[in-house]
């Protein structure tokens, strides 16, 4: 069983807020629709470059798109 990534994202809500389909956003950032679906579902961690492209597409910073939980002692 693949361990889910700790990195979460709100790509889906940002995408829907802009009225974009998965196919349209995938085309904009240069990936296949299946890859975008995998990223949205947390089944694939995008490269840093791709993460920046996604954030830039929404005109926002990385922190607004991707979240990483705080370390707890």
């Amino acid at each position, binding site marked *: *069983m693949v361990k889910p990534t700790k990195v979460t994202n709100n790509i889906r809500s940002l995408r829907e807020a802009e009225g974009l389909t998965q196919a349209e956003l995938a*085309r904009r950032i240069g990936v*296949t629709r299946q890859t975008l679906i995998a990223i949205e579902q947390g089944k694939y961690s995008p490269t840093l470059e*791709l993460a920046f492209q996604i954030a830039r597409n929404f005109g926002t910073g990385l922190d607004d798109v991707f979240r990483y939980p705080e370390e707890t002692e």
Partner: protein
Amino acid sequence: MVYEERNTWSALIVTVITTIAYVIVVVHAAEGGALTDVEWWPIMAWTIGVSIVATVVVSVLWGFIAGMFDPDSVGTADQRDRDISRIGDRVGQSFMVIGGLGVIILSAFEADTFWIANTMFFGFALAAIVGGIASVIAYRRGLV
């Protein structure tokens, strides 16, 4: 299903079928006698040739059919495909190494060329099959 995943499935299916076919043909050719008496190399050469051609044909035909339903999915590969391909190669490589080590050991003991060649052949086949399975799992379950 994306272009590269289709290609992975095509190679995996063809490799499994041709490897099983190779074993059946060699065992049948032995006619109950020693396997080392079988003229194995034409069978092996044909198996490798047929595998390559069949993989290309299946990939092209599958791509053609899939392209009719989803034209955007034809011939495109992205970072995720490359990452998954690397995982598959890494997993498969270990079996190639095992095959290579087997060849060295068998050569050291002057084993029959049948066993030496077939050890390498099954090293390649297992590398392709296990690497393909790893890639398919990564496509289906995710890669994080």
